[in-house]
């Protein structure tokens, strides 16, 4: 392994611009004659719009235009789509209401986009926005999915009676019922997976621009997938045909899923730029991010696990009500179905599973994928059930898991997924060692002497990522394929540009992708440039989310590199007057087997372009190859997280004294970057379990609307992490990569809540387990004890 090859912790190439303040995030970009947009948003959770009077706003200083839903409709701008069809148990298609770019006749959540003001400066646009008079007829609102499904609830969309988008199921109901009937023990939990706000540190922003001369549009957008944005904005929203629309996602400051979706703001900026005749920039502020970014999670689940007398799992039965918010966001329907229920087998050989999911509209912000997207929810169900079952049956939590691990592969679960490779006991054993599980009783006793409560919790997660095999997801309702593309352009002077359909917004692709290319072609890593994020440069790509850019994005590069190598060998064979079969390529040099004839890669590259040394009738000049890679399966990262907490019973303050993560990600390109992904994921999991929670009041007002009321994890909330790896290579892609971006967020909440409930000796506690929640649980416990 070289110090810049696969497996090396190469320091990142992209860092220079970020550490010197020379990054180009969307708000940093200024186009000539740029104007600014401010959105008028609904202050009501549910209301009809009787009329909008823009007269005062139009007269305000600096204002160029004010547009409403009527203008959008008049220009036949299509609505924002949900791209994944789900069918209910009765076979009917999901009931989806429309989602216009600016409200038409009705608003359905606080923050819903009603009108836009375009002005010369941000301040003028915002001032004028306050002058837009909207005449609302306020309607009753409903924020709880259970209440939304009940008779008499306010109806959000005519298309969805009882606000129910779909009633979906997966698994074998009869087999599960039979198994439960025979069970020696049943563990039951009522679990809430709390709503979260993704809060990437860079707020969403967009600049839409129209060129009158060419009739073409350009959109700068904080997107994780510029080509998908272009496809949606052309094919569905209808703003321009693809070939007249350039979408650029420059440096993007974090996404975590929230920047996958196509939102109203960039749609409106793009559309309006033609009407106004000047570029229009919108930069969200943090309050808008809270109101109008897609939120995450928000499941209420009834879950049961049936076991036999030896602790063998027999069956799992789950009923989930998923809150999808006021409109269906781009991937919303898939998150509580095919990204969730398909992981309910966990790491275990569970013969029978049945899961029902009701997806419900409420007067809250749309809910969609957020780091983990369905898999944190699944892991929370499985690992809380397993740990609770262990406590109820008196089995050690590690022992119960060992009795149920999948041990032979491939393993077909009862919920579609077929696990291809893994060694779950290896990660469990390593994690227990690193966490000094054996020493816990001693540490607990010592803490008790100091008046503190210690607890320890496991989370043996498995997830399905590297999304995804196109035909498979197509058959499950996806509107798109989930392959990835790469083009390898070798320049005459021997340096290389890689055009990738992936998009880096923190993941370090400019380094890791270059490591792969540098090691395959034997050229220095600084001779490799990764190009991403511009639809004018990269032909098409599906973007970065679902932990797919290593497994799928790099596999596409690998395929393209195979083609480069094959062609280069043909050229080298002519240049060295040998037959193609005798050419070997290693460490950047082509040699004729059994001789000392050799040529370095750079020389072959130059010759490919001068084209003097081979017949152009047989071999085309140039050295440039592309590939599309379609995965043959999901990948299945898995591992064991063990967290230990110490609680101060007087204050409820919970300290994470150690956080151990042992993950199997298959082959690892850059350990430093992979560990960084684990750290960040764990931090978000800690946020969910202990700090964060997005709250709407009964009237639909967002109570947690800023960092004052929504508690973000800070450095002092977290320990330094202990991260270890085990490895079973992924058999389904050329590089053996499983993906690592979401694992921490998937595993952590269950481990933490297992630890906290262990410390308190309670069966369950809601997330976030804030000091107040923990303190109250202790008080209730103490009261119960005193009463005995």
């Amino acid at each position, binding site marked *: 392994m070289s110090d810049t090859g696969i497996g090396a912790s190469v320091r990142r190439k992209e860092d220079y611009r970020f550490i010197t303040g020379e990054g180009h995030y969307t708000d940093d970009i200024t186009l000539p004659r740029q104007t600014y947009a401010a959105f008028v948003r609904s202050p009501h959770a549910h209301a009809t719009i009787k009329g909008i009077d823009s007269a005062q706003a139009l007269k305000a200083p600096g204002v160029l235009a004010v547009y409403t839903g009527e203008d959008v409709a008049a220009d036949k701008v299509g609505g924002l789509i949900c791209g994944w069809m789900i069918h209910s148990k009765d076979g009917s298609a999901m009931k989806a209401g429309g989602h216009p770019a600016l409200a038409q006749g009705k608003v359905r959540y606080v923050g819903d986009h009603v009108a836009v003001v375009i002005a010369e400066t941000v301040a003028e646009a915002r001032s004028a926005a306050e002058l837009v008079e909207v005449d609302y007829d306020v309607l009753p609102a409903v924020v709880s999915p259970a209440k939304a499904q009940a008779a008499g609830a306010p109806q959000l969309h005519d298309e969805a009676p009882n606000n129910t988008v779909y009633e979906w199921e997966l698994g074998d109901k009869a087999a599960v019922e039979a198994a439960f009937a025979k069970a020696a023990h049943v563990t039951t939990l009522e679990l809430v997976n709390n709503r979260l706000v993704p809060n990437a540190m860079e707020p969403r922003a967009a600049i839409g621009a129209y060129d009158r001369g060419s009739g073409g549009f350009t959109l700068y957008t904080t997107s994780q997938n510029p080509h998908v944005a272009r496809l949606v904005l052309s094919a569905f929203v209808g703003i321009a045909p693809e070939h007249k629309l350039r979408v650029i996602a420059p440096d993007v*400051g974090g996404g975590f899923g929230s920047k996958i979706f196509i939102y109203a703001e960039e749609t409106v900026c793009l559309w309006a730029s033609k009407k106004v005749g000047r570029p229009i920039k919108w930069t969200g502020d943090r309050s808008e991010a809270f109101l109008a970014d897609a939120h995450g999670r928000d499941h209420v689940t009834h879950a049961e696990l049936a076991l036999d007398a030896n602790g063998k799992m027999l069956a799992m039965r789950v009923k989930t009500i998923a809150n999808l918010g006021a409109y269906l966001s781009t991937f919303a329907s898939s998150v509580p179905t095919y990204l969730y229920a398909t992981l309910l087998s966990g790491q275990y050989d569970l013969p029978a599973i049945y899961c029902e999911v009701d997806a419900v509209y409420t007067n809250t912000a749309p809910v969609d994928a957020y780091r983990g997207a369905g898999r944190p929810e699944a892991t929370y169900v499985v690992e809380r059930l397993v740990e609770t079952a262990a406590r109820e049956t008196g089995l050690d939590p590690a022992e119960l898991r060992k009795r149920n691990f999948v041990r032979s592969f491939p393993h077909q679960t009862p919920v579609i997924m077929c696990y291809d490779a893994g060694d779950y006991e290896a990660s469990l054993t390593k994690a227990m060692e690193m966490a000094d599980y054996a020493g816990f009783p001693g540490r607990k006793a010592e803490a008790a002497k100091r008046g503190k409560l210690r607890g320890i919790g496991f989370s043996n997660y498995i997830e399905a990522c590297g999304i995804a095999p196109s035909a498979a997801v197509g058959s499950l309702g996806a509107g798109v394929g989930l392959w990835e593309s790469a083009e390898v352009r070798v320049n005459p002077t021997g340096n290389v540009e890689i055009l990738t359909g992936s998009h880096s917004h*923190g993941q370090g692709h400019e380094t890791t992708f270059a490591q792969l290319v540098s090691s395959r072609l034997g050229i220095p890593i600084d001779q490799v440039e990764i190009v991403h994020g511009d639809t004018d440069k990269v032909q098409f790509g599906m973007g970065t989310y679902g932990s797919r850019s290593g497994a799928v994005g790099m596999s596409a590069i690998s395929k393209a590199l195979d083609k480069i190598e094959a062609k280069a060998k043909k050229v080298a064979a002519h240049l060295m007057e040998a037959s193609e079969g005798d050419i070997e390529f290693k460490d950047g040099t082509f040699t004729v087997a059994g001789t000392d004839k050799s040529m370095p890669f750079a020389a072959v590259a130059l010759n490919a372009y001068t084209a003097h040394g081979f017949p152009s009738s047989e071999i085309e000049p140039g050295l440039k190859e592309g590939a599309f890679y379609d995965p043959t399966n999901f990948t299945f990262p898995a591992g064991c997280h063990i967290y230990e907490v110490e609680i101060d019973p007087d204050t409820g303050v919970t300290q994470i004294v150690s956080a151990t993560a042992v993950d199997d990600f298959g082959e690892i390109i850059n350990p430093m970057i992979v560990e960084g992904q684990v*750290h960040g994921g764990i931090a978000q999991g800690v946020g969910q379990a202990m700090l964060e929670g997005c709250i709407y009041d009964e009237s639909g007002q967002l109570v947690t609307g800023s960092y004052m009321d929504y508690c973000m994890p800070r450095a002092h909330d977290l320990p330094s992490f202990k991260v270890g790896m085990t490895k079973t290579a992924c058999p389904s892609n050329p590089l053996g990569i499983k993906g690592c971006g979401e694992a921490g967020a998937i595993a952590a909440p269950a481990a933490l809540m297992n630890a906290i409930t262990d410390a308190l000796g309670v069966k369950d506690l809601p997330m976030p387990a804030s000091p107040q929640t923990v303190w109250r649980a202790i008080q209730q416990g103490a009261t119960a004890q005193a009463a005995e």
Partner: protein
Amino acid sequence: MPTVSMTVNGKSVTGQIEARTLLVEFLRENLGLTGTHVGCDTSQCGACVVHVDGKAVKSCTSLAMQNDGASVTTIEGLAKNGELHPMQAAFREHHGLQCGFCTPGMIMSGVDIVNRYPDVDEATIRRELEGNICRCTGYHNIVKAIAAAAKDMR
């Protein structure tokens, strides 16, 4: 419109601005120094941290006019003669950044922390970073970077 004058990254600058202009707006919009970022609207996230007369200040919560006559250093002014400041180098060496958006403020806060605690330990770093939020890194490597830079800054 009033006039404001200050030194930014060693250069004298003057601008005619509305009185309500925030320091971060003056830096980003008037001076084109877009390295300082806006990440929130409640003065909590720290992406906007700069140094004013040698001390860390949240430029989103300071009016440009309040800094008339002051000496301001932004992230763009930290490297000297093309050589990275030890804090910048440490962030790269220890992978203390992912998306980079919080990074300028983190680095400026990091320098300020070490200026005040030359022999800083992990617990102090974590406590002192209360005003800087990162969503990507989980802080593990940021803490390592600041601790390492402290040694190099002696």
